[in-house]
């Protein structure tokens, strides 16, 4: 590994905020040396709707991060989300070529190419090919090379998105004279930050509930099995509070943060809470029960949509490690209990890894941290490629790799 430090930028352009991290990687450890954060404008549900506004706030966040880091970056890893992202599964199988049935690199390459060869509709571009484990005569193997078998199978979960919407994000970054080195699926970035390898091996569902979208990644056998994006999130709850309680969106958001709960616990329907609590003119009282009811209903709804979208892929039996929640909306009290009831498996809030400093231990940062971690691991893998094939960083990076 090289001892000279490498500066890596990670950008998450969300509906509520834009987060930029700049990491310094010296070949052994990663230090976050710059953070830029800016309230998001021109982005709705993971889609750029106002290019100028989106550019300005993204560039502000990038400038802040660069200023704090005191370093100039040339390329970034960009988190990708949005309702336009979809996925499908495609698999292929080949008969092993060699007479002695020993699987060679050529067999692996062929089966992988075939499994990825599915054509997309016009205007759709591949964002990720996520490989599931190989099967040799029906048994799961992580690496089939030199194993003996007659039939080699592999499947890919291919995530694709709308060309125009992907291009918009890339142009926003390019407008700051930065190159987008890699698009990283937000659900995978978050999933790898909040779940452990053991959980992924046993089966776990990582859900990142943001402001505009909810990203999820279902892991089985240690690798991502299914990913998806639902174009609803925290703003959905805020909107309902705003409509139901006849409030401005800003005040509804404030109310949600102060009194919102994902499950109704207040029995006394007459219990009131003050909007501001400062007894100023315009301060109003609201029923706590009503607030909780609205929040719980919408949270339940969001989780139900996720469950419905997962379909047969999710069963409590194949997800024994339960559900792990993240994202800004996951800070809503009681959300883990609601998730547990919806999915029928244990649920808990995702914990940020120990190496993350205290001021960054917030569910809202998990995606950007995951993207940064992906950037580091891909660098580490590139540096170690001739020497090392294993390792935690490398295995994380390989999940996003084409093969």
């Amino acid at each position, binding site marked *: 590994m090289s001892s000279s430090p490498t500066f890596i930028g990670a950008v998450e352009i969300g509906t509520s905020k834009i987060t930029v991290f700049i990491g310094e990687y010296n070949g052994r450890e990663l230090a976050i040396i710059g953070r830029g954060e800016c309230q998001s404008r021109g982005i709705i549900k993971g889609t750029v709707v106002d290019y100028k506004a989106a550019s300005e706030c993204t*560039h502000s966040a990038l400038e802040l991060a660069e200023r704090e880091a005191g370093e100039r970056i040339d390329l970034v890893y960009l988190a990708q989300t949005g309702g336009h992202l979809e996925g499908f599964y495609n698999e292929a199988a080949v008969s092993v070529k060699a007479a002695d049935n020993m699987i060679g690199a050529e067999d692996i390459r062929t089966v992988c190419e075939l499994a990825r060869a599915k054509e997309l509709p016009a205007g759709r571009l591949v964002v990720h090919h996520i490989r599931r484990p190989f099967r040799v005569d029906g048994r799961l193997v992580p690496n089939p090379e030199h194993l003996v078998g007659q039939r080699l199978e592999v499947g890919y979960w291919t995530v694709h998105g709308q060309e125009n919407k992907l291009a918009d994000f890339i142009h926003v970054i390019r407008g700051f004279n930065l190159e987008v080195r890699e698009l990283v699926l937000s659900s995978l970035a978050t999933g790898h930050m909040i779940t452990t390898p053991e959980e992924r091996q046993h089966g776990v569902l990582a859900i990142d509930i943001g402001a505009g979208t909810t990203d999820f990644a279902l892991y089985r056998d240690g690798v991502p099995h299914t990913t998806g994006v639902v174009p609803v999130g925290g703003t959905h709850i805020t909107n309902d509070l705003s409509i139901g309680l006849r409030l401005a969106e800003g005040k509804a958001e404030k109310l949600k943060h102060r009194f919102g709960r994902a499950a109704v616990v207040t029995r006394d329907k007459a219990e009131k809470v003050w909007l501001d609590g400062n007894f100023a003119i315009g301060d109003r009282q609201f029923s706590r029960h009503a607030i909780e009811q609205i929040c719980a209903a919408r949270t339940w709804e969001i989780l139900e949509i996720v469950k419905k979208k997962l379909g047969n892929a999710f069963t409590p039996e194949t997800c024994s490690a339960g559900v792990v929640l993240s994202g800004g909306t996951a800070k809503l009290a009681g959300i883990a209990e609601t998730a547990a009831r919806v999915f029928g498996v244990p649920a808990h809030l995702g914990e940020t890894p120990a190496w993350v400093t205290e001021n960054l231990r917030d569910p809202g940062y998990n995606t950007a941290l995951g993207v940064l971690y992906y950037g580091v691991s891909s660098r580490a893998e590139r540096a170690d490629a001739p020497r090392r094939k294993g390792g935690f960083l490398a295995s994380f990076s390989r999940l996003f790799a084409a093969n």
Partner: protein
Amino acid sequence: MSRTQDSPPHARSWRDIPQQLKPRAMSAGGRRRVWRHSLRSVMAVLAIVLIGVVAWGVNEALQDPAPGGAARAADATPVKEIALATDGVLDQAWITRTLALPKAATLMELDLGKLRERLLASGQVHTATVARKFPSTLAVTLAERMPVARIMAQLADGSTRELLVARDGIVYEGAGYDPAIVNSLVWLDGVKLVRSQDRFQPIPGMEPVADLLAKARNEAPHLYATWKSVSLARLASDHELVVNSTVVEQVTFSAAVDFFRQLALLDLLVDTGQPLKDVNLAIGRASDADGSYQVPVTLATPPAPGTANPPAKAPAAAPKAGATDQPAPFFIPFNPPQKKNPREL
């Protein structure tokens, strides 16, 4: 579901989206960043140029005798050594004597221009380079002239002195040469030396003389060894050089004809064993009949009738009538023998 491998189609990836820079799509922050980057690049280039200029300036300051700067650092150390590099015969003693550096002089006190002039004044030095080599060495590099002839000159005080003449006509005293080499040089005659201040002006027309002498020394050393002097008296008017030797009293060469051919003719004439007094190689002519070449030759003693080699052809010129007390010139025809190597004498 086993499939065949028939170059599977590849789906388009997000990497197919071009990432070129579009100025119109840039925000103010983006433009600022690009400007800052460009400015930084320009500054970096300017810094490199500035460093280069400063380095050049320092180098120049060290080379120049001007006082100040880095030069002052070497002021305190006197010159300890004169490093001489030459392509000739001048030695350390000569350079020390000629430069005559003051005792305890430092490098920065020396006027390199004057020292160089002092070296060039000797005439023997063709080019000279004098450089400071810090902390205490004076580096002198010389290219010397080589003598082609010698001349006896009368000095201002009336005394005479033997001087050397180089190919470019420079007359100089000569130092460090082996006396045997100097004694083997031919004397110059028919030259009027012109004094200019404390030295003689260069002798014009020395190039053909140098060519003749070099050709004779290299191709016919046995002839060259007999040569005593070369006269340039008729060079300007007739393009002729007159050589005085111990074998032939006077040999006239044409400066306009190949010296090698003329030397070959002279060699053949000498080989005939005739006592030659005067050979004029400048006005010979070729015979139309058999291609032989004829030159006027004056014998020291005219041959008795019938004893001379009977010419195959009739002599082209008869002895002058009435010149009985003077040896009369006549033509000796000869056919150069056919040689395998035309350059072989």
